[in-house]
């Protein structure tokens, strides 16, 4: 056990986490350059394209240190986005130390801080690493100063490296061995292993990623999960090299996988504790909680005929992403679909993109919202995440919405602009902290609903890309909420309804009316688009009827030419949704969500 080191790399997005991981893999496993792909651990297309890590991943690296001994370095790669902070926390709970990576040209950012706090919470050893030192705009002294002032880390302990150029990799590896303590725990104690992720394998079912704290697990053992009923018989255990590599056993201190006939990843809650049925451990590993979605939206197939394939796609998708929750939903405008709950906006985008890409679905997604709380006059409290279930206003006593603490780090010169967008979005109780000359850490208490649509994009725009953002959920607060309906020729398009704060309703209504006006093609009759609060119209736009579409001449008996054109147009209509007599293209539903220009 004293030759094992369990560590993770934490960094703000784009600071080079995946590149460093690639280098460590290449260095220790002696992979020739030509076999090396970028982002070795990011196996999904979408991870590679976006340069982000979505799923936790892990790899065991064999390393012969300068002391001549062979070590087993377990690198646990964590997702790099606030949506997945719970998964990150479970991964960190499986480590004894972290490499805290800071980009030499960017410095400390919001997620650097958030990740550092998380690591400190878990009592982990922190090895500061300054990456990208080869860049001409690298500012080593500045970043070191930030580390000292903002992170309270000893800048002299920082390792300088360029993962891209392969500089400083040896020092990083030596520091992992010499600074991070070996795991504690005992193989003789009852089994206690923490699940930090799970992946679905078509042939084997759920592959459980875990860190063994105490005891030993081997094939044939009967296991149970502390917070989930049922027992499972172990079929295989092993560690991750470039592929899964079976082992005879996993013992205290090891990081690896267990295959135990668990059918879906839903049965393996991240953060749960695995123990033996016969000789259970006394208590579960701390920190387990049910993952709760915070952002909600409905998905509908573009064509109603595709409903059943959507059902199938969601079922398959969920095998590998237990964080997605969904239930049936139906809309007069869009037909049968599902109301889905997501960990955050990135998670929503990922689910949508993967469903479309990996499962060949054409989807319409409604405006994302949060879960509101309504206290009714009869004393009941209801939680509503779907505008369609908005209670009858005459029964509502109080409306509440979730608030977050938003933390933004930005160069001071953009503070005015940042302040403006946060106040526009109902930010209150602003606090400012100046960790270093020229830099501001601003925090606001804001409604969650205000940051789920295009907030991050706006922040990036007004800070010219320098601003960074992180948030924590705070609590529910009383708020003056209303339900905004969108009417097309007096018919309510239920899929476009949303719950908003009264002071933001008109702005939203105008925006939606304008977007729809741009996206809905002119038709044979005039189309009125209205935004309404109850019976009160607060915004409107009109699409004039086209005067004429008829071809003057019908080509002397050539009926085919025009018919073919009609056939093509008719095929195109399958992607339209009928609301009353009006055809609304899929693009209109998407356009409503797009970021404002400028």
């Amino acid at each position, binding site marked *: 056990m004293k030759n094992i080191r369990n560590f993770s790399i934490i960094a703000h997005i784009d600071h080079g986490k995946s590149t460093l991981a690639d280098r460590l893999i290449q260095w220790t496993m002696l992979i020739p350059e030509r076999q090396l792909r970028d982002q070795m651990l990011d196996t999904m297309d979408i991870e590679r394209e976006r340069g982000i890590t979505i799923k936790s991943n892990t790899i065991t690296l064999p390393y012969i240190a300068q002391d001549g001994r062979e070590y087993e370095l377990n690198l646990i790669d964590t997702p790099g986005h606030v949506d997945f902070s719970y998964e990150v926390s479970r991964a960190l709970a499986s480590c004894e130390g972290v490499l805290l990576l800071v980009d030499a040209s960017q410095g400390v950012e919001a997620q650097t801080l958030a990740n550092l706090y998380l690591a400190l919470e878990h009592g982990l050893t922190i090895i500061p690493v300054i990456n990208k030192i080869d860049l001409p705009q690298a500012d080593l002294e500045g970043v070191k100063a930030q580390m000292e002032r903002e992170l309270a880390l000893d800048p002299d302990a920082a390792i300088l490296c360029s993962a891209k150029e392969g500089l400083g990799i040896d020092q990083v590896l030596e520091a992992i061995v010499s600074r991070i303590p070996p795991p504690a725990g005992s193989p003789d104690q009852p089994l206690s292993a923490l699940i930090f992720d799970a992946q679905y394998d078509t042939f084997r079912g759920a592959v459980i990623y875990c860190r063994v704290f105490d005891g030993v697990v081997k094939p044939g053992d009967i296991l149970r999960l502390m917070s989930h009923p049922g027992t499972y018989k172990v079929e295989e255990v092993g560690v991750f090299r470039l592929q899964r590599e079976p082992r005879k056993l996993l013992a205290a201190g090891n990081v690896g996988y267990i295959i135990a006939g668990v059918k879906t990843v839903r049965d393996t809650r991240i953060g749960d504790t695995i123990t033996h049925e016969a000789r259970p451990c006394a208590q579960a590993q701390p920190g387990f909680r049910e993952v709760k979605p915070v952002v909600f939206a409905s998905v509908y197939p573009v064509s109603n005929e595709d409903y059943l394939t959507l059902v199938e796609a969601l079922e398959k998708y969920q095998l590998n992403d237990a964080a997605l929750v969904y239930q049936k939903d139906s809309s007069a405008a869009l037909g049968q679909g599902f109301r889905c709950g997501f960990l955050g906006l990135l998670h929503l985008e990922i689910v949508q993109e993967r469903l479309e890409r990996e499962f060949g679905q054409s989807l319409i997604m409604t405006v994302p919202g949060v879960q509101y709380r309504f206290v009714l006059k009869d004393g009941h409290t209801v939680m509503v995440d779907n505008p369609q279930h908005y209670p009858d206003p005459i029964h509502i006593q109080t409306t509440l919405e979730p608030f977050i603490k938003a933390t933004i780090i930005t160069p001071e010169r953009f503070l005015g602009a940042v302040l403006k967008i946060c106040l526009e979005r109902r930010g209150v109780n602003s606090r400012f902290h100046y960790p270093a000359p020229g830099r501001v850490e601003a925090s606001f208490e804001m409604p969650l609903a205000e940051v789920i649509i295009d907030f991050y994009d706006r922040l990036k725009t007004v800070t010219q890309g320098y601003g960074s953002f992180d948030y924590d959920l705070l609590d529910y607060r009383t708020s003056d909420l209303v339900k905004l309906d969108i009417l097309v020729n007096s018919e309510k398009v239920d899929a476009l309804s949303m719950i908003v704060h009264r002071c933001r309703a008109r702005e939203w209504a105008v925006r939606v009316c304008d977007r729809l006006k741009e996206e809905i093609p002119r038709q044979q009759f005039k189309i009125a688009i209205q935004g309404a609060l109850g019976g009160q119209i607060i915004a409107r736009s009109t699409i004039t009827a086209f005067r004429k579409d008829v071809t003057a001449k*019908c080509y002397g*008996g050539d009926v085919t030419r025009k*018919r073919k054109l009609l056939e093509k147009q008719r095929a195109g209509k399958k992607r339209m949704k009928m609301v009353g007599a009006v055809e609304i293209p899929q693009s209109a539903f998407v356009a409503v969500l797009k970021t404002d220009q400028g």
Partner: protein
Amino acid sequence: MSSNSFPGLYLHIPFCRSKCPYCDFYSVTDLSLVTAWVAALIKEAAFYREKFDGFDTLYLGGGTPSLLTPAQLEALLAALRRYFHFTSDAEVTLEANPDDLSREKIAAYQDLGVNRLSVGIQSFNDRDLTFLGRRHTARQAVQALEGARAAGFANLSLDLMYALPGQTEKDWRETLNVALSFQPEHLSCYQLTVEAGTPLGERKTRGEFQAAGEEMEGALFLLTSEFLEDKGYFHYEVSNFAWGKKNCCRHNLKYWRHVPYLGLGPGAHSFSIVDGEDGAQGAPYIKNGVRWWNQADLEGYLKALAAGQAPVAGRETLTPEQFRLEILYLGFRTRRGVALEDLRGYGNWETALGDLEEAGLVEVVQGRAQPTRRGFLVADGLPLRFGD
């Protein structure tokens, strides 16, 4: 439009003295091949002797049929009459340009049995005629019509064009008034359509003129319909008006009603209904619509026939769904509209029809959904309102 059970015969005369810049019908200006074409067409007709035995319309279109000398036309018609039966009351239309219509020619056509002249007037305004690249003047147009009437042509149709650049409502009304002074039995009023690939289309792309625009086109369309219906004409198809139902163009009605027609000449289209089996065992015989078309290339056409082959370039058998779509799209182009039973197959037919009635685009009369005047304006979109 009494008898529509007979098929119609169309001849495409692919020659013009000069190309009008807006036209995208197939024609060539090299007139040296007319004689060869006459011979080839007679050969082509022979292919269909068994398949079509009788016609009640003959339509000579183009191109410029009035380029044909009486002798050439006589040779053609004589051959066709040998191959096919024509009913005694057959409608025989010839498209003519005013500058071709000398008194002698008019008399000769009449002797050969042409009983309906469709005259390509386009406008009685010389500025419009220049823009359209026509060879005749307003004065020649008037003379041609006077000549036709004097010769005793009792069925005259005038082709007119509107929504021309710079044309005002007043200009167009004047042209219509001059047209009506001849008391034509039939009027075809076409909106200028600037087709891509035509010289006019290129000039438009270069910004050399400004098209009338949708608003103006719509206004002129409604004006035309109101004006002519006020004078007693029947607006029976998007661009066609008849002085009483009996003067509707019997030949063109076949196109819109799925009555078979045979088209001869380069680029001509044909339609026929054949009995067929739908493939399933024991299935009843069904009727299939078949369309075919000739190559739109005179040299290829001549070559094929010289080699003893039919110059057919393409052919399709309509699926029931295609047939149905055609019924809607052709039906909604005509005042007669679409029979409700042809709409019933669409899942949304009742709501779609209700919406269209409410919008004032369609009215239901005696079991048929008929486009209104405003409905005509958007006729292309009407069939697509019906779906499942």
